[in-house]
Structures are given as structure tokens and as C-alpha cells.
């Protein structure tokens, strides 16, 4: 997309300068600034890659940016995978349930609500929409403790539901879906489908959802990142470490060390394992991001 957007500009800009074809010099200032940014963002990841090849002793005795090749990498990885009877894999599985399961569910909830608010007028629809816009102002993280206080009397705390349910609805996601539904699902198509005898439900799931798909991928990614990033909610809700997501589990591993280095190589192995698959998935999904949706959403 970048390449497509920039090519015509370069083609116009070059002759307009002085008509000289040799002005394709590299913009060193911009290139170097960007490389600085890239190094800043990559160095910690690179360090964890190197540190994961070291045993606990080597971590403190060898230069920080020189990897070790004595096979500690595999013992670190198998160490974290077998830690406490393989609890790390359980945490990874829980993370999938919370972030992917919760992400998919909440995307559908937001899509349904956004479609209904964007394409229909019904009694109270304006009021519902105004309420949702107001709810955008209430940050969910600040509500984690009150949510615990509310769920504790009904015995829902320390369950999968206690982490899933509060994150199923995201007012901002509904807002984005409403705007996208208004812009992308044409009234004419819906009317044509009605004349052909399609039910409202069929119009929603076979036309509405399909036309909203690009926005839904972005909404899913926003939700996924939000859940994966939300530490306070599981921290407050869960006491059974079998239910922990990865973030809470890893925090629990560093916690008892109190800065003491005996478990460091294990934690480093765990951090490495949490980052790599996620980064791979994320970068491969990168081109589906529609960030213009976010900036466009606020202009309206």
C-alpha cells in the first residue's frame, strides 16, 4: 500500500524539481532518523534473543550482547515449558481463550450493534448510540476493581468468565462499526435484497457482515491487543494460577524472585517464547490493519 501510494508522487516530483533525472539521491536525514527508531525498538527484542541462549551463570559473567552457543537455549526453553508441570503452556492456552475467544466474540457483538445502529432507526436507537459514545469516556481499566466488587457477591470471580465477560463489549469498537456500516453497507443493496425476499437476518449475515469485513478485522485486532494487554483485570479477578493468562503468569514468576537473579534465565526463556509467536502472527496480519478507520472515525 505504501509503495502504491508513493510511486506516483515520486514520478511527479522528480521532473517538477529541475527536470534533472539524477536527483534520485537518498534522503539520508530521514533514513537515518528512521533507522535510529528501528534500532531503539529492536534492541530489547534482540537482547532477549541473545539472553535466551545463556545459562543463568553466563547471564552475569558474559558480555550482554554476545550470544552463547553451549546449548543453554534449549535447556532454557525446555526449562520454561516444564516449569511447574508445564503450567506455561496452560497459561498460553488461557491467553488464546481470553484474547482470541474474547476478541472474536466481542467483534461480533460490536458488529451486530454497530450494524443495527448504523442501518436502522428504531425506538431509542439515538439514545442507545449517545449512551455508547458516553461510555467511550469510561476507561475499562479503571473499572476493574469495581467490576471485581460487583462480581464477588455472585461468585463469578476466579473463573474464565470473570476475565471474558467484562471485556466483551467495547464502546469504541461499536462506534467504529456503526460508522463503517453507515459508509459501506448501501441502502440500495439492502432494499434490493428485501425485494428479493431476503429476511432482515439474512441481509445482516450475508450482506452486512461481508461488507463490514475490513473494519471487523481491525476491530478484532484492537480487541485482541486490548485483552492481551489488560493486566489489571485478571490480576484482580484470578487467584487460581491454572486460570492465569501469560502476562499474569510471567509476572508471578518474577514476583517471588524479588529481584534475585536465580530464576532469571527461566523468565527470559518465557519472555522470549511469549514474544516470538505473537510478533510473527502480528506482523503477518499487519497489512490488514485499517488505521485510517481510527483517524477517520474521530473526524466524523
Amino acid at each position, binding site marked *: 500500500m505504501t509503495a502504491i*501510494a508513493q510511486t506516483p*508522487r515520486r514520478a*511527479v*516530483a522528480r521532473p*517538477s524539481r529541475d527536470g534533472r533525472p539524477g536527483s534520485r539521491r537518498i*534522503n539520508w536525514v530521514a*533514513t537515518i532518523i*528512521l533507522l535510529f*527508531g*528501528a534500532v*531503539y*525498538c529492536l*534492541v*530489547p*527484542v534482540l*537482547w*532477549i534473543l541473545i*539472553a535466551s541462549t545463556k545459562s543463568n551463570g553466563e547471564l*552475569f559473567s558474559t558480555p*550482554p550482547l554476545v550470544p552463547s552457543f553451549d546449548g543453554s537455549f534449549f535447556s532454557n526453553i525446555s526449562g520454561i515449558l516444564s516449569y511447574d508441570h508445564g503450567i506455561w503452556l496452560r497459561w498460553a492456552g488461557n491467553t488464546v481463550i481470553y484474547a482470541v475467544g474474547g476478541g472474536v466474540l466481542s467483534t461480533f457483538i460490536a458488529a451486530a*450493534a454497530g450494524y443495527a*445502529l448504523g442501518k*436502522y*432507526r*428504531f425506538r431509542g*436507537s439515538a439514545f*442507545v448510540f449517545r449512551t*455508547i459514545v458516553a461510555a467511550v*469516556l*469510561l*476507561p475499562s481499566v479503571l*473499572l476493574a*476493581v*469495581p*467490576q*471485581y*466488587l*460487583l462480581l464477588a457477591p455472585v461468585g463469578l470471580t476466579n473463573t474464565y468468565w470473570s476475565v471474558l465477560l467484562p471485556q466483551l463489549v467495547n*464502546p469504541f469498537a*461499536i462506534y467504529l462499526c456503526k460508522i463503517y456500516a453507515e459508509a459501506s453497507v448501501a441502502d440500495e443493496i439492502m432494499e434490493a435484497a428485501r425485494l428479493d425476499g431476503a429476511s432482515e437476518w439474512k441481509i445482516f449475515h450475508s450482506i452486512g457482515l461481508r461488507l463490514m469485513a475490513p473494519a471487523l478485522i481491525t476491530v478484532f485486532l484492537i480487541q485482541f491487543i486490548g485483552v*492481551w*494487554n489488560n*493486566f489489571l483485570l485478571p*490480576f*484482580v479477578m484470578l487467584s487460581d494460577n491454572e486460570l492465569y493468562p*501469560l*502476562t499474569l503468569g510471567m*509476572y508471578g514468576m*518474577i514476583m517471588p524472585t524479588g529481584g534475585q537473579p536465580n530464576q*532469571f534465565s527461566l523468565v*527470559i526463556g518465557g*519472555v522470549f517464547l511469549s514474544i516470538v509467536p*505473537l*510478533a510473527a502472527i*502480528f506482523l503477518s496480519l*499487519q497489512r490488514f490493519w485499517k488505521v*485510517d478507520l481510527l*483517524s477517520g472515525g*474521530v*473526524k466524523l
Partner: protein
Amino acid sequence: MAIATSAPRRRRRGPILPVLLVAPAVILLLLFTFAPAVYAFVLSLLRVHVSGGLLGSSTETVFAGVANYVSTLTDSEFWASLGRMLLVAAVGVPSVLVFATLFALCLDANRARLTGFSRLAIFLPYAVPGVIASLLWGFLYLPATSPIGGQFIDYFGSTAIFFAVANVAVWGVLGFNMVVLYTALQSVPRELFDAAQIDGASELQIALRIKLPMIAPAMTLVALFSVIGALQLFNEPTTLKPLTNAISSTWVPLMRVYSDAFVNNDIYGGAASAFTLLVMTVGATVLVNVIGNRLSRRSAR
């Protein structure tokens, strides 16, 4: 005639589907967003009253009025935690805004190279959750394992700690905000730049005089995201806490809400702190929005 009028009326009353579609969201929103906020407010008005009786003391919950708010607002530690949060925000928010804008302008600049690689590299930390990022940077800060001079610089020093915490947060969100701004730049009509270039404007002048004002609304959005993020600061200091004594258990307001409610078992005081914070966040959000809109309107003129 009767048929003709009844058909449109049925259409106007509308099918039942939209109500069904919007229902799950509304119900969940009521249960998990509005109810907790209201419940927190109700709890914040209560307190435990211990009364001594013949059969030993008994506790009951009584109406406390604004007593919990008074004790929160007169507690110097509450203001200190708010102050620490604002210091981190004072370092972090401008950094995000300046560097995200700088990188977006560089990505958009003519003849810049390796842009695909840099964009991906800067975006990558967004996939790393705050807790993992804090562990990662924690190791980089710790003197024993630091590859960035932790042996000589005390990253957990009394001043450095604010930069250390802000740095973890900035590292995580820089790429996302850069992409937001870059996308805004891409939607600016290209003819504007070409016209300026023909008039002899340099790349730098185009960036400062044309591109910056054009993306002012998106910059407001970035500032808003960053301020809201700063007010919810919790993950980074909590995760860095086991590594250093420089971070107390009430270092930022949200940590205080947690320790009030769960460590000190004072859910009423915790609810009052939580609700105070909620009101402050809503206020700050509205304020940033108003300022941003006013600024971008002025620059559009």
C-alpha cells in the same frame, strides 16, 4: 387502502432484528461498564461502622457521606501518586507525540530508504504487552544484566525512574501512533506538496508548514490516546516493582486503588479513589479534546 397504509407503517415500526442485534451490547454495557461505575459510587459513600456491644463488637455498613472522598482528597499520598503519574506523563506524552510525528514525517519524506523495514521494526513493540515489555526493559535496566550501561547509570534512581517507566510505555505505543499519523499524512492531497515544491519550498519547509498543520487532528487523537493511557498507568510500574525499591505499592493512583481494596481490605476507600480517578479521567479526556479541536481549528485558518 387499509393494506396500503399498514404496509409502510409496519416498515416504519421496523423489524425486530435491530433491537435483537443491539441487545447483547447494551446488556453487557449496562452490566459491566455502567453498573460497576454506579456500584463504585455507591460503595464510596459507605463505610464500616464497628460498634461495641455486650456480645462483643459487631460491624455494620453505614452511610458515610463524602467522608471517604475527604480522606482520599486530603491524603498527601494520593496527591503524591497523582504527581508521580503526571511526571511520567510529562515525559511520556510529549515523547510519543514528537517521535511518532518525526518518524511519520520521515516515512512520508521523498527518497527515504528502508522505510518498509523501519516501519515494521517501530511497529513491532505494539505486539508486546505492557507486562512483558516491562520485564524486558527491567532486565535492560538491572545492573547485573544491562547491555545499556546499567552498571554506570542507575536507571532506578529517584529521577531516572520516571524516565525508565515512561520509556517502557513509549516503546510500546510509539509504532501504533506513528502509523496513525502516517496514515493521516497519506490522505493529504499530493498536489499540495507538488505545488509547494514547484514554488521552491524545501522538503523541511513542506513538512513543517504544510504536512504538520494538515495532520493536526490526527495529532490531537495521538495526544488523547497518550493522555488516557498515562492516566491508566499500572502495568509498567507494577511489573518493575519486584526489581527495585524505588517503586512503592502506591506509586501511581491505580496501584493505590488496588492496594486500598485488596491489601488494606478497605473497599469503600478504594471505591472512592477509583471513582475520583474516573471523574478525573473523563475530565482530562474532555479537556484534551477541547484544546485539540481549538488548536487544529486555529491552524486550519
